[in-house]
């Protein structure tokens, strides 16, 4: 069984695309081969900055011959029909076999497709793969029309078996396949030929190329942690950065360097962000002080001075970067300290000129709205209204600071530092950092009351505002991240178990928007239903069905999300019991009979069911059961104890079932019939007090 080796050698592939590209190469090639009948034992894909490599082992040497039998027209069918059949099958009349069937003699064709050599199939599949490769962004180069992520230089395509290795001939826009590749761009740039995957991987390593990105990442991480450990320090873990750096080098050489003394007092977040974003350095921390003191950079080569020149250069570049950061930090601190609790006035002034959205006013307008809203929300989340209003007023002022202008991802983090310097209380300063949260579905939500008030105010204002100018998310388009804001509201409320009527928040936000000329009246009912939609997605991930949530959304107080979810969880649980499931059937039956009777009679059966008109024990038992259930459900609902209420409701299953088994509702006696219909109405009403069971899917 032959093995296949493919290498696509190009100019530097962006680090973030390499892993996915190797996977795509494997998937597209193996799928294509299998589709053409070439099965294989195993396959592996690798990437470096300059190459995508695929190895396939135990491939069939040719695709198997296939035979297809096709049933044709009757033997005595018109000549035209037979001709058509022959054309389709690619056969002559003599090739057909005549067989007797119950419908008389019928013609059968036997179509044999001979197997094809692996090389032919591979060449075809690879050419197609290259031409249709799903790069996130691709380009043309020179005079050609081929697209690749960066110019593609060579194709190595080799089929190896016991007899030896053979190049699979292939020509893609003038790039002719061969058995050669090149080593490290600087350390071993010469071309060399290979005979198998093992030979290829071994020769690459001798040519200073580590083929496997996982091996490169491991070696970087080991060397980095060892060097840090030797100096009594530790590397700040960053898997994303590690993967990226492993995609920037073929021969990783880890170097640890120093951060200039002048910069060690910068906040850790500033050092980390600057080093990571600009230089792709790892931060190295002193575990005793928690300070970032050194950095790790990963070079792509060995040098005779053991990296001294490279490290000196990197230290110099870092110093220039950090000099900028320190300049911003010092300037910002000067502003913050001069403020002395004056509402961060210089930054506030700047924000009056910064547009938040051209139809929703400036950042300063936004802040004013948020502050009013945070004050309204404060009592609902247990925060001091003055503190919440103040936190909202100053919590975004760092957007005008120089540091945040340079590093937008440090918004809030810097605000907290600056507010502390300006003498604001801890909760107010913390709210500057925490009110943006949660940014992702797994991000922590704020828990401190002041942060909660500001975080909710920020998101509710945003949602109401964009609803007021009719800029809602559509399909995959959500440029203002409103789905994220809605999920944020949901998670903040639920994870903190806040009792909060969202409509109150929307109304207050809409009131604050009245000053904005371009904003219409926000359709807050539509906004609430948007929140409900997001809630369904959120709860579905927790195993609660859509229809269960719908049954609860249909109930009053559905803008109190904590209440809504408690109800949904209780209903979901009860529906998972046998009683609950059967009660739904019974409820549906009661409801159907009732609805039909009401339609036929043109009246509404609602009240007046009376045990004295009962004809059977089952009826009387049901009356008693309903009285009992109601006696438990009503107080439970008053206490919002849904579990008890739902259990009481599910307890109706047996008497209701017994009733339906024994009793014909549409009795000939009009009084008995009316009484029974009124009884059914009582069942549905009791259930309807708990949740709208008509929405539960059957």
């Amino acid at each position, binding site marked *: 069984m032959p093995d296949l080796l493919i290498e696509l050698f190009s100019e*530097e592939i962006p680090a973030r695309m390499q892993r996915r590209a190797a996977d795509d190469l494997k998937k597209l090639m193996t799928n294509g081969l299998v589709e053409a009948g070439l099965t294989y034992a195993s396959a592996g894909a690798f990437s470096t900055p300059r190459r995508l490599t695929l190895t396939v082992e135990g491939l069939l040497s040719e695709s198997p011959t296939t035979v297809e039998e096709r049933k044709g027209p009757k033997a005595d069918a018109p000549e035209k029909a037979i001709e058509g059949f022959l054309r389709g099958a690619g056969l002559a009349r003599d090739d057909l076999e005549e067989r007797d069937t119950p419908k008389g003699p019928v013609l059968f064709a036997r179509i044999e497709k001979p197997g094809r050599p692996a090389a032919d199939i591979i060449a075809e599949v690879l050419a197609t793969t290259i031409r249709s490769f799903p790069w996130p962004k691709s380009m043309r180069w020179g005079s050609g029309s081929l697209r690749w992520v960066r110019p593609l230089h060579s194709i190595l395509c080799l089929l190896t078996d016991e007899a030896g290795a053979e190049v699979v001939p292939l020509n893609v826009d003038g790039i002719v396949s061969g058995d050669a590749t090149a080593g490290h761009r600087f350390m071993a740039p010469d071309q060399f030929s290979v005979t198998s995957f093992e030979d290829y991987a071994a020769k690459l390593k001798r040519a200073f190329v580590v083929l496997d990105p996982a091996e490169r990442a491991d070696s970087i991480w080991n060397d980095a942690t060892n060097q840090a450990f030797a100096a009594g320090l530790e590397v700040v873990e960053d898997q994303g950065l590690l993967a990226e750096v492993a995609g920037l080098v073929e021969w990783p050489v880890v170097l640890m360097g120093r951060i200039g003394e002048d910069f060690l007092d910068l906040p850790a977040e500033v050092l980390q962000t600057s080093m990571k974003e600009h230089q792709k350095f790892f931060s190295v921390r002193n575990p005793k002080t928690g300070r970032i003191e050194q950095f790790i950079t990963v070079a792509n080569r060995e040098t005779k001075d053991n990296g001294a020149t490279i490290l000196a250069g990197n230290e110099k570049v870092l110093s220039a970067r950090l000099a900028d950061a320190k300049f911003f930090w010092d300037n910002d601190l000067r502003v913050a300290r001069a403020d002395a609790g004056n509402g961060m006035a210089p930054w506030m002034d700047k924000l009056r000129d910064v547009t938040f959205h051209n139809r929703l006013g400036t950042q300063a307008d936004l802040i004013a709205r948020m502050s009013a809203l945070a004050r309204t929300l404060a009592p609902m989340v247990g925060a001091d209204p003055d503190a919440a209003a103040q936190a909202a007023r100053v919590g975004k002022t760092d957007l005008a600071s120089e540091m945040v202008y340079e590093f937008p991802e440090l918004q809030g983090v810097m605000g907290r530092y600056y507010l502390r310097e300006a003498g604001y209380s801890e909760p107010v300063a913390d709210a500057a950092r925490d009110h943006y949260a949660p940014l992702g579905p797994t991000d922590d939500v704020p828990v401190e009351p002041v942060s909660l008030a500001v975080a909710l105010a920020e998101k509710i204002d945003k949602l109401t505002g964009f609803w007021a100018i009719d800029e809602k998310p559509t399909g995959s388009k959500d440029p203002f991240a409103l789905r994220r804001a809605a999920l944020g509201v949901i998670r903040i409320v639920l994870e903190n178990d806040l009792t909060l009527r969202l409509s109150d928040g929307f109304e207050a936000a809409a009131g604050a928007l009245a000053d904005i000329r371009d904003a219409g009246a926000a359709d807050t009912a539509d906004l609430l239903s948007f929140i409900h939609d997001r809630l369904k997605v959120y709860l579905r991930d927790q195993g609660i069905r859509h229809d269960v949530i719908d049954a609860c959304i249909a109930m009053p107080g559905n803008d109190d999300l904590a209440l809504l979810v408690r109800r949904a969880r209780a209903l979901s649980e009860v529906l998972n019991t046998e009683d609950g499931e059967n009660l739904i059937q019974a409820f549906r039956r009661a409801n159907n009979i009732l609805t039909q009777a009401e339609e036929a009679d043109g009246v509404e059966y609602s009240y007046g069911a009376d045990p004295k008109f009962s004809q059977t024990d089952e009826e009387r038992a049901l009356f008693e059961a309903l009285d009992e259930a109601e006696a438990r459900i009503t107080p439970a609902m008053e206490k919002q104890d849904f579990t008890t209420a739902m259990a009481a409701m599910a307890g109706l299953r047996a008497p209701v079932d017994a009733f339906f088994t024994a009793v014909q509702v549409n009795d000939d006696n009009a009084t008995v019939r009316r009484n029974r219909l009124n009884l059914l109405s009582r069942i549905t009403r009791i259930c309807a007090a708990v949740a709208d069971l008509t929405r539960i899917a059957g």
Partner: protein
Amino acid sequence: MSETVSTPRSFQEIILRLQSYWSSKGCAMLQPYDMEVGAGTFHPATTLRSLGTKPWAAAYVQPSRRPTDGRYGENPNRLQHYYQYQVLIKPSPPDLQELYLGSLEAIGIDMALHDIRFVEDDWESPTLGAWGLGWEVWCDGMEVSQFTYFQQVGGHDCAPVSGELTYGLERLAMYILGVDHVMDMPFNDPQTPVPLSYGDIFHQTEEEYARWNFDTADTAVLLRHFEEAEAHCRTILEAEHTDPKTGRRIIMVHPAYDQAIKASHIFNLLDARGVISVTERQAYIGRVRALTKLCADAFVQTRAGGWTPESAA
């Protein structure tokens, strides 16, 4: 690798070596464009010549102006007026990376000691309606060049594709010469009778322009000039293609493009003066892009842009 090249001694020596290197590789050595531009890409030798089918190979120094980057000559790395070295080759040759690395060796970067990396950087110029894919080239962690394969310019697909190299000369030279502050960098050979530093030549102009750019440039005048340049660019292009005097087919792309460049620079000045709000910014950029697009449309209708009477027929 070639034998070690000596380290240059001055800013101008680095420029001269780049000139000599790219000349030896067959590029036409052009001179700077005689107008204020934000980057070497605005030179018609790049913007317009990257369009159409005709082969092209040119290199030049381009003084570039970014009014908002002025720091009165105080910041070690930032200038409102600086130099770019620009190379444009169409179609991009298959060995463009090797050619580029050769240029680094020519200016004294020893490949055996330094760490050169090609780091993803997609280039886009909203005012030129242009984009391309390529890298920033890092030397020991410092960005020393941009390397781009042009895909679109002025809204037109580039076919063939041009390879563009842009060197930020001051930063590169500071690194090679081991200078920490741009103003301390030797402009000519320090051993000459009249040694001049970068600061001797540019410190005063940085001060003057920083003050003018940030505080005193007359915004009313600039706004008017912007409108005029914009209107002028359009009227030039609307002129009859056949020159009534000579009877020749003369589309005045370059004069029109000059007005587009002018509008672009005036926009940068207005931006530095802080009179353009965030929302207006996009609108201004869109207006400049509309002009460069008109110029690109017109250029491909000229002989330099690959037009022939046959192709028109």
